[in-house]
């Protein structure tokens, strides 16, 4: 059997079924609106968006692995590149750039110049503290956790807050080995 070769982001995106980005963008807008109505506090909305992203990440990782033919994710540096070039491309049709590595090689930035979530969006004065795209940080955190990398993900630049790009800071806390899950026997 021929070895399975990981596929490039463009190749995967060209082969998956796609939908109009507006359906996606407007649906996301409807979700944020619902959360703002339900939770009232912007801080709570940020938290809920992050949680929803995490839930998505936990599911999405399997699709990502299945479609991209990636059979292992062990090295953090390699994984960050794969997320940026294949992961973002495969789902959102855009690629991110990995930059600003720290000396230890455990913290880096994912920079997005195009972001389909924010088409049509401008933050009203009442929502200045809102991280509109917080779902993305949750997705990255959730997906990485499923491949045993515990991370902290936060926004350092956000175009909706007047910055020149979207920048996610990803910090690897630890890699979790696979444990034998049953406690009651050896």
């Amino acid at each position, binding site marked *: 059997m021929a070895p*399975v070769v990981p596929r490039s982001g463009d190749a995967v995106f060209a082969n998956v079924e796609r939908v109009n980005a507006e359906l996606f963008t407007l649906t996301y807008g409807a979700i944020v609106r619902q959360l703002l109505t339900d939770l009232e506090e912007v801080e709570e909305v940020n938290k809920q968006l992050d949680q929803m992203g995490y*839930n998505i990440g936990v599911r999405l990782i*399997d699709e990502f692995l*299945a479609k991209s033919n990636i059979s*292992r*994710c062990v090295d953090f540096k390699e994984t960050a590149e794969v997320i940026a070039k294949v992961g973002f491309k495969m789902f959102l049709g855009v690629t991110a750039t990995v930059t600003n590595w720290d000396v230890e090689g455990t913290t880096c930035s994912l920079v997005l110049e195009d972001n389909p979530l924010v088409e049509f969006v401008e933050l009203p004065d009442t929502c200045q503290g809102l991280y509109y795209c917080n779902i993305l940080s949750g997705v990255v955190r959730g997906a990485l956790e499923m*491949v045993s990398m515990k991370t902290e993900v936060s926004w350092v630049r956000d175009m909706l807050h007047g910055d020149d790009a979207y920048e996610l800071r990803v910090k690897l806390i630890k890699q979790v080995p*696979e444990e*034998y899950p*049953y406690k009651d026997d050896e």
Partner: protein
Amino acid sequence: MQFFGGSAAAEMTPSPAAPPGTATGLAGNNANMLYIFNRNGVCLLYREWHRPLHTLDAQEDQKLMFGLLFSLRSFTAKMDPTSVDKGNLGVPLLPGQGCSFYSFRTNTYKLSFMESPSGIKLILVTHPKTGDLRDALRYMYNLYVEYVVKNPLYVPGSPIKGQQAELQGSSRFERVEGSGQQVHKLPILDSNPIQGKTNSG
């Protein structure tokens, strides 16, 4: 039961004649059982097509199967003659660390195994003479993604149930084994009962 019997032993031991009712003689399904586990050892799906002998209750059975795979993976990585990075026996491995095995065969069955980096484990137990099922397993992983993971009502980590698991899921899973059978016409013997796939860099 032999796990590590060399190929000679495997060839010398005649495979048992297919018992009446096994699908081996018929076109299509020659699978005995299918298990899908997640990284926490939860059995997400169990299906059996031909399993005349049950010695344990379902829960014990699943636990034992998961334990077997867990230990076997640890053993195979430890015994890898080509890799320096093999960890210590009993010390948990990172998923994807070290080599991994993808099938073993006894004189009565063959177990094919696939693990995703996210810790989803697919196990297919078939007639011992079944050929390479890695493609079939990967296809099943894709089905799991399409029909389980994307279902808005599915809660990750819970056993797969509901109409879709019945209709879409397992009938397709069955079809996979059917196609596996057709693709790999019997008898095909693997050269090694345990094939260690070394993941290099």
